[in-house]
């Protein structure tokens, strides 16, 4: 499954470690929510990055105290039409100020890319290779935005009321390093 980051298909440097398997000394890892919460302190000591897969029926507020230890949070779209993780993403970015990598996983199709980016995601495990290649095009599909979300795109209301001189921008501000 191709991974898209910063608009390009890239190698995934994270390894998923199943529950019960030992966490390697080195290298970036992703663990389950239960495992992470059980071993948060120990995992936080690692020098290499740690990420967690957070299910979409769990309150992201529970993750808040641990965010400084996390380099990545992967949220889940079990089905294309299950939109819970959009709220989780906005809360992580806009309320809890998470600055690490926020990854969309599961049923991720090109028609969601722009919504995902606007909600704060910056990496995408894409189901179809053709969709991954169309990332750039899909996120430039629209130039008009009404909602002020954390992605920094200028809203129509701000332009109309004279707060911003220019037409809405197309490029979002980068959220994660």
């Amino acid at each position, binding site marked *: 499954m191709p991974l898209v980051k910063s608009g390009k298909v890239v190698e995934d440097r994270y390894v998923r470690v199943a529950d019960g398997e030992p966490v390697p000394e080195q290298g970036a890892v992703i663990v389950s929510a239960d495992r992470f919460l059980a071993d948060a302190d120990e995992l936080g000591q690692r020098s290499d990055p740690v990420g967690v897969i957070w299910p979409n029926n769990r309150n992201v507020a529970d993750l808040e105290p641990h965010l400084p230890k996390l380099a990545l949070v992967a949220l889940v779209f079990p089905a294309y039409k299950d939109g819970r993780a959009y709220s989780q993403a906005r809360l992580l970015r806009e309320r809890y100020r998470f600055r690490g990598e926020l990854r969309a996983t599961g049923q991720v199709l090109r028609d969601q890319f722009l919504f995902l980016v606007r909600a704060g995601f910056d990496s995408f495990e894409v189901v179809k290779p053709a969709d991954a290649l169309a990332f750039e095009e899909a996120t430039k599909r629209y130039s008009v935005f009404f909602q002020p979300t954390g992605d920094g795109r200028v809203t*129509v209301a701000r332009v109309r009321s004279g707060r911003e001189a220019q037409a809405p921008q197309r490029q979002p501000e980068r959220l994660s390093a």
Partner: protein
Amino acid sequence: MYLYDDFDRTLLAERVAEFRGQVARRLTGELNEDEFRSLRLMNGIYLQLHAYMLRIAIPYGTLASDQMRKLAYVARRYDRGYGHFTTRQNIQFHWIKLAELPDAMADLADARLHGMQTSGNCVRNITTDQWAGVAPDEIEDPRIWAELLRQHLTLHPEFSFLPRKFKIAVSAAQHDRAALAIHDLSVRLHRNGAGETGFEIGVGGGLGRTPFLTKIIKPFLAKRDLLSYVEAVLRLYNQYGRRDNIYKARIKILVHELGAERFGKEVEAEWQAIKDGTLALDPAIIADIAARFRYPDYERLEDNPAALATARKSDARFAAWLDNSVSNHKVPGYAIVTLSLKPIGKTPGDCTAEQMDAIADLADRYSFGEIRVGHEQNLALPHVAQRDLPALFAGLDAIGVAIPNVNLISDIIACPGLDYCSLANARAIPVAQEISKRFADLDIARGLGRLHINISGCINACGHHHVGHIGILGVEKNGEEFYQVTIGGRADEQAQLGTLIGPAVPYDDVADVVEDIAEAYLDLRERPDELFIDTVKRLGVEPFKERVYATR
């Protein structure tokens, strides 16, 4: 009218381009039907029994004459020469080909029309009072707030994949013409004790399998807080609404399971966290939207000009229409005219391309080019000078939309039912046609006074049968069409769900049952001006039930 600008036009063009690509991917098989489904639904496209159906939003029921002409064009070019107005300020075309859908959408976009968010699990077309801006009983124009909400909730990145559809209605009048209580979220403008205008917010209304009326969770919300409060409601719903069972996925079930009080508290907590952020409404933004609603340059006229009295005396048909279909306007010398789309024996809400063109011409001549669409599946011309009423009547009469049956028993609301809809259990349109034939005599219909019949072809309740004074619901029993009848429902400011009068009756008996109920009412009412709904309220369903089932 609302003035669109380049942003609106650009967005629609981008939407059409996106959809063209999606249809192309579907036609090559790159998208399977399941994947395409949610994409087409977000553009108002359903797969029905015979063909694809395209649903177009008419925001707050306001339509300009050029838009009406465009609808006529689309009806002719891509459909079978007619369209169907629904109960939610939408129009549907039932016979469009998949490959032609992008072109139809592009044509509609030229007239600022679209089907975005008219279906799917997102925030649907926001509806209001069809008399917004002209009703004498409103405290301000509710469309300003509907438009602010519409913009904020268009392609909202967080709320485009909700557990289920989400319907919002806004009203600012004393009399509720927007059926607030049956919406997922209701916004009612009112003045508080201190004389400030703000909103009363209700949640969790909706019909279908488990009907509920809204519960008020915020009696007074300041104007600046409208977007943040709605965002808080939607955020809770998106995260905690049920997704395991489609029949339990509407917000009404969440509100019911948590209890309105607890739900209100959760909303309050979420809202406190965001209310002073970027969603707080700046007066400049409100002023900008308000300035885009343009009102006609009304003349200074007197109410009841002499020409009207003369015409009333000389033409009994005109007089009957005047009494039935013409309502007070907030500007002296003007009137609001309702166009009945309920001709006897025809499909409620259908309008032919010829009628659309003629209505557009009449709107240009007599209503400053503006037309309204109401949830009762009728149209209105909102700014008619009273002196022009006789001429307008002649024009409307010539195309068959001056039938003086507005709000009477033959002004039936019906969903498409088994004639079009793949979910239907039973026919709805033919039932409406038969009932309207039984009450074709306008003297009889007028004698019964205000009486609303609502018909749905299945439990999804698109015909709002629960809130009909008489509600008729099609069910299936051993492969045959049966109908449950309720009475006493209403969708106005005294909203109430109807009560079942007894066992379901077969298709052939429905019109007879309605006649029995009407006769019982004539016998039971205290005075000629006691409305059917008030008689039911006073006596309950028992005496009606007795009458209906005595001989069955």
